[in-house]
């Protein structure tokens, strides 16, 4: 059964992914109005974890590693949001960098206070070195990891009070 997710929402893990994806696609860089979708030729190729096998390049894959700390009774999560932008052939390296610049514009200083709370603090970004066999050496990519702080509804509003 498929269920439509109304964003923004942090009511479940998939809702968090959907919200991040929706925000990524809606983000327009100031002042030129460039969006990720425009740089991808009009298609919204943003996936969770990995792209489907027949994907067109470039695409974005995102992954969240979530960790709760006892200091906030498990309500607050310090996450690592990993964004990979992958291109092929090698000539897409510039395009991949441009897409990641737009992603940086969104996630450096990201705030989503409309459902629970999500915000980002800092990031590390690097270009994937050229691979060799058995990896396809024509594939280029950039990886950015953002420290994302979450107060998700799934752990706050929707969770019974531990006391």
């Amino acid at each position: 059964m498929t269920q439509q997710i109304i964003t923004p929402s942090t009511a479940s893990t998939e809702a968090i992914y959907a919200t991040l994806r929706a925000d990524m696609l809606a983000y327009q860089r100031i002042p030129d109005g460039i969006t990720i979708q425009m740089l991808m030729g009009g298609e919204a190729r943003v996936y969770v974890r990995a792209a489907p096998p027949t994907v067109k390049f470039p695409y974005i894959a995102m992954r969240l590693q979530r960790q709760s700390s006892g200091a906030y009774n498990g309500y607050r999560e310090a996450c690592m949001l990993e964004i990979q932008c992958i291109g092929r052939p090698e000539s897409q390296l510039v395009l991949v960098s441009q897409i990641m610049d737009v992603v940086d514009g969104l996630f450096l200083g990201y705030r989503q206070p409309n459902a629970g709370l999500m915000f980002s603090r800092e990031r590390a970004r690097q270009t994937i070195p050229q691979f060799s066999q058995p990896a396809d050496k024509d594939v280029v990519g950039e990886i950015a990891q953002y420290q994302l702080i979450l107060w998700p509804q799934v752990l706050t509003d929707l969770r019974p009070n531990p006391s």
Partner: protein
Amino acid sequence: MSSVEFTDKRLRFYSRYKSGREAGLIAAAQILVNVVARKLRGGYTSGTFVTGNVMASVTKSQPYPDGEGMSINVGTNVRYALFWELGHHNIFTRKYERVPIWQPAAEECGPDCAAAFTRVANRHIEAGGL
């Protein structure tokens, strides 16, 4: 007439502190080496083609000074370990393949590494009779 003797142990402390810091880093890194090697024991896929090459190559560097103090690296010189960690489009399986091992291991054993560092560094400093 009574006298009070003051001894300046700062130099001795600093020397023990330096050696303790290095020993602590080596102890902390060894925990990560062990965890990564254990996670690599079954290989990356079905376990059918495990050669143990990456597992045997997991190693640590010597402690070295960096901008903020001392650091130590845990890594491998087997290049395809990087492909698996970051993900790659495999030309043989024609699929995207990814099995992160190193980063989850580092997150998993972070507190244990910190505890090992503290324990070993303290022991070095205390052994100096300070």
